[in-house]
């Protein structure tokens, strides 16, 4: 409906207002039109009255003028004096004849009275005279009394006429009588017809007529109250006029019927007494013309007004359309678009036009701002919803595709609701409605009951105790030949979620890793304790050759002891294959012991089998360390290539990688072990008494690059034995312990490696060194005096310097100590010597380990 829209309402409102304005102005106009009509009536009334009065006045003065003129006529005066009526008649006849002939006044009458108010001569009725007029002719009485002229309407024997009465006074001033000039009103009536297109009717009030009414008998009566006092009568007019409401005429001053517009003028005598009226009229058509002229103006104004009002209304509607409706429509469009967006019919939002007029522009701006916010919110919501949906899909996919099975079960252990595909795959059946405990503990009724009870109890607990009890539930199951890891989650107080993970592969991988780790452990252990390993291997190989010697019931205990020992030794080397075999063999021996007879199992084991058992591990070791690894007992380190290969192979396994990394390093003890032998052998050769060299060190692993330096230390040990420790007899003389001591202490501290080698031998004779320096021309006495003891001692590390008196095959060629210094410097190492002449010497080597 149109009225429902703002635009429609606006249009209706504008038209309503316009209508109201128009009807108000119309009523004003029409009342104005009414007024105009009245005004026109009054105008015409006045015009008619003025015209009448003007005519009356003209008559008045004509009457006066003629009366005065005639009263001064000496003939008339003489005739009056002499009572000569014939003379008067003669004179007046000529006069009246001439007046009638030369003027338009055809109805004039002249009456001369005596000074005692009697009729002297009536020009219009010469035979009637002598009658007393004083009873009804006030004007005549008045004039004769006051000797002053009087004029006006008066009723006489000739009816209502305009009468001018003047005194007749001769040249001597004698008052002779009076002269009356009587005029009819036909000329007035005629002039009305001529000039006003109207009519005139003189009406004498019957009430005011004199007692003598003879002269009026012929007069026509008018509406009973009046007598028509005029000869010339428009008959049509008389007919219409006779029907008008006289009372209304006197009230309003005018009246009209369908032919005439009537008004009147009062007729009064000179004394002001009312005698009748002059009824004057104008054809109503003429009056209506005037009215129509006046009304035409009003109608034109009305039309102009209507036109203007409509124009304004249209203008308002058009402009309001532009100012209000258009922006509202724009707003509406914007909002439509916005809501279309909100309702997801559109994907974009059209912004509102902010260039609209001030208020709408502001509104649009606000709405736009809010739209932006809402749009952003909606977009975010949408993104969120999308993400949520994606997440749900992902979760479902996870549930279905993850290597995990999900299922829910209630406090009666019954599986229900959603569960993932994998969960079914694990149990290999439709699990809905099954009892979880029966699935997990298929044939174990006791465990079914225990777990059901526990799970129910867990639900009754909370917090810490709940967690505690959950942690006690079995988490690994073997279901359908798969290893399954289970995790319980409590969803609410009466149901559980169970997450099942197939860890079969992981377990297998773990096993594999464990195996490899085990192998590596063995390799590393063997490599590190290479010598010891070879010894054990040799011992075992020798032992197994004698196996048959033990195949006797009395030897079983011994055999078991041996086997047990070897088992322990190989276990130290992490050689688990042979350990397992030996363990089983031990069991077999035990059985034989218990049964006091050699079992089949036991007897089957011969040398070859025992060697084969060892071979199980050796194969692995050879594979990694190289075929010739066991051939050369002097091998300390595994060939680098082997290590790299091993490293490449195992670097993805974190646990093993660190073990393998160790293979690149060597236990520092390994490098010092030969020095124990060296010291022992040298002391025998040089006939010195020395306690076995002790290497005080933890397992410190160092890289290859330290090897040359550590090997060069052989010169220090040689020197200690050769030059340091005195011969026993000398030591005895000196009061020293006959047996010398050489110690070696290795320490890792603050990223440095400290190697201290000490002997309690003779120490260095500084004086002797100085002599040798000078002797070898290496320096001068003066220069040496400036040096500290330590600086002087450092000369022994110079090339070709030897303090020994004789070069032996053990030391003294002077190249040994210098090679230590050379290797030490390569490693940025330092040396410090604490010399105590006759008491001993201490070499402190400091090697940086940082970054290794």
């Amino acid at each position, binding site marked *: 409906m149109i009225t429902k829209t703002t635009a429609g309402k606006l249009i209706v409102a504008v038209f309503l207002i316009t209508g109201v304005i128009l009807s108000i102005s119309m009523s004003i106009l029409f009342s104005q039109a009414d007024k105009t009509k009245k005004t026109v009536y009054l105008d015409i009334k006045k015009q008619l009255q003025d015209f009448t009065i003007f005519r009356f006045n003209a008559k008045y003065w004509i009457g006066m003028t003629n009366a005065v003129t005639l009263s001064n006529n000496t003939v008339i005066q003489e005739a009056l004096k002499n009572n000569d009526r014939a003379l008067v008649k003669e004179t007046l006849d000529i006069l009246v004849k001439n007046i009638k002939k030369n003027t338009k006044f055809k109805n004039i009458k002249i009456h001369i009275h005596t000074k005692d108010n009697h009729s002297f001569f009536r020009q219009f009725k010469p035979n009637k005279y002598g009658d007393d007029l004083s009873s009804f002719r006030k004007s005549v009485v008045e004039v004769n009394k006051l000797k002053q002229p009087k004029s006006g309407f008066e009723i006489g024997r000739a009816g209502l006429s305009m009468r001018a009465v003047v005194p007749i006074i001769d040249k001597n001033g004698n008052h002779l009588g009076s002269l009356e000039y009587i005029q009819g009103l036909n000329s007035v009536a005629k002039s009305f017809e001529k000039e006003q297109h109207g009519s005139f009717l003189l009406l004498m009030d019957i009430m005011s007529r004199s007692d003598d009414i003879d002269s009026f008998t012929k007069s026509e009566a008018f509406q009973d109250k009046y007598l028509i006092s005029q000869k010339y009568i428009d008959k049509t007019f008389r007919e219409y006029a006779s029907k008008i409401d006289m009372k209304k005429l006197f009230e309003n001053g005018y009246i009209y019927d369908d032919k005439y517009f009537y008004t009147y003028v009062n007729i009064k005598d000179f004394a002001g007494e009312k005698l009748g009226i002059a009824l004057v009229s104008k054809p109503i058509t003429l009056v209506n013309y005037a009215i129509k002229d006046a009304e035409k103006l009003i109608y034109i104004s009305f039309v102009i007004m209507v036109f203007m009002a409509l124009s304004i209304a249209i203008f308002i509607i058009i402009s309001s359309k532009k100012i209000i409706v258009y922006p509202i429509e724009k707003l509406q469009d914007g909002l439509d678009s916005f809501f279309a967006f909100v309702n997801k019919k559109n994907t974009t939002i059209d912004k509102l036009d902010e260039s609209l007029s001030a208020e709408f522009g502001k509104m649009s701006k606000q709405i736009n701002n809010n739209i932006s916010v809402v749009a952003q919110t909606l977009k975010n919501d949408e993104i969120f919803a999308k993400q949520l949906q994606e997440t749900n899909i992902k979760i479902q996919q996870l549930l279905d595709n993850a290597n995990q099975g999900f299922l829910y079960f209630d406090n009666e252990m019954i599986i229900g609701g959603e569960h993932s595909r994998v969960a079914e795959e694990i149990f290999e059946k439709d699990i809905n409605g099954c009892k979880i405990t029966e699935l997990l503990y298929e044939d174990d009724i006791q465990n079914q009951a225990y777990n059901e009870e526990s799970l129910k109890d867990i639900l009754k607990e909370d917090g810490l105790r709940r967690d505690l*009890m959950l942690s006690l539930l079995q988490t690994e199951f073997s279901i359908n030949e798969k290893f399954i890891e289970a995790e319980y989650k409590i969803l609410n107080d009466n149901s559980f979620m169970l997450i099942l993970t197939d860890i079969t592969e992981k377990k297998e991988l773990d096993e594999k890793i464990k195996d490899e780790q085990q192998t590596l452990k063995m390799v590393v252990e063997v490599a590190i304790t290479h010598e010891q390993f070879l010894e054990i291997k040799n011992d075992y190989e020798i032992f197994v050759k004698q196996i048959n010697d033990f195949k006797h019931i009395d030897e079983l205990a011994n055999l078991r002891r041996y086997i047990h020992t070897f088992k322990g030794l190989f276990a130290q080397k992490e050689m688990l294959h042979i350990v397992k075999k030996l363990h089983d063999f031990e069991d077999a021996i035990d059985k034989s012991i218990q049964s006091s007879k050699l079992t089949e199992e036991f007897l089957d084991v011969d040398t070859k089998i025992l060697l084969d058992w060892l071979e199980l591990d050796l194969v692995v070791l050879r594979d990694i360390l190289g075929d010739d690894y066991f051939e050369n007992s002097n091998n300390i380190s595994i060939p680098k290539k082997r290590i790299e290969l091993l490293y490449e192979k195992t670097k993805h396994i974190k646990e093993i990688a660190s073990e393998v990394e160790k293979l690149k390093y060597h236990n520092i003890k390994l490098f010092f072990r030969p020095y124990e032998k060296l010291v022992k052998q040298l002391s025998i050769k040089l006939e010195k008494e020395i306690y076995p060299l002790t290497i005080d060190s933890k397992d410190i692993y160092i890289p290859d690059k330290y090897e040359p330096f550590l090997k060069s230390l052989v010169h220090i040990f040689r020197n200690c034995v050769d030059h340091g420790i005195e011969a026993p007899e000398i030591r005895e003389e000196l009061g020293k312990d006959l047996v010398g001591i050489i110690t070696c202490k290795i320490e890792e501290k603050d990223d440095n490696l400290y190697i201290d080698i000490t002997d309690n031998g003779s120490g260095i004779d500084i004086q002797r060194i100085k002599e040798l320096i000078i002797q070898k021309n290496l320096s001068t006495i003066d220069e040496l005096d400036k040096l500290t003891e330590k600086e002087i001692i450092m000369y022994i590390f110079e090339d070709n310097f030897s303090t020994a008196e004789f070069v032996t095959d053990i030391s003294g060629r002077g190249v040994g100590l210098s090679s230590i210094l050379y290797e030490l410097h390569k490693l940025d190492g330092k040396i410090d010597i604490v010399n105590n002449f006759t008491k001993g010497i201490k070499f402190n080597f400091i090697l940086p380990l940082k970054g290794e």
Partner: protein
Amino acid sequence: MATVLVVDDSRIIRNGVKNVLEKLGHTIVGEAENGYDGVKLYKELYPDVVTMDITMPAVSGVKNGIDAVKHIIEFDEFAKIIMITAHGEEQKVMQSIKNGATGYILKPITRDKVRDSVKRVGFDSDN
């Protein structure tokens, strides 16, 4: 810091638990080598915490650690009892907890495990 009663039939385990607890700053107020003595000592000493071995010889009607827990809880329902247990004893631990035990330590006993368990029953350790 807590006062602790150690109940275990193995002297070695008792000493181990004692050592660790003392290093953590707790005070050992008593030792018992069976459940019966444990319950008796608890009533005498009112310790903050009890460490309880599960498998112990039955003495005077107290069958084992699980039973001892029941007796102690009957006496003091707020007793803090930590079970000392090994793999494979889960069901026994479960029973102990149902009887009122508040925690358990799975052998081998380490300082971290003991610290955590004692903390869980409400006592901080010194280090």
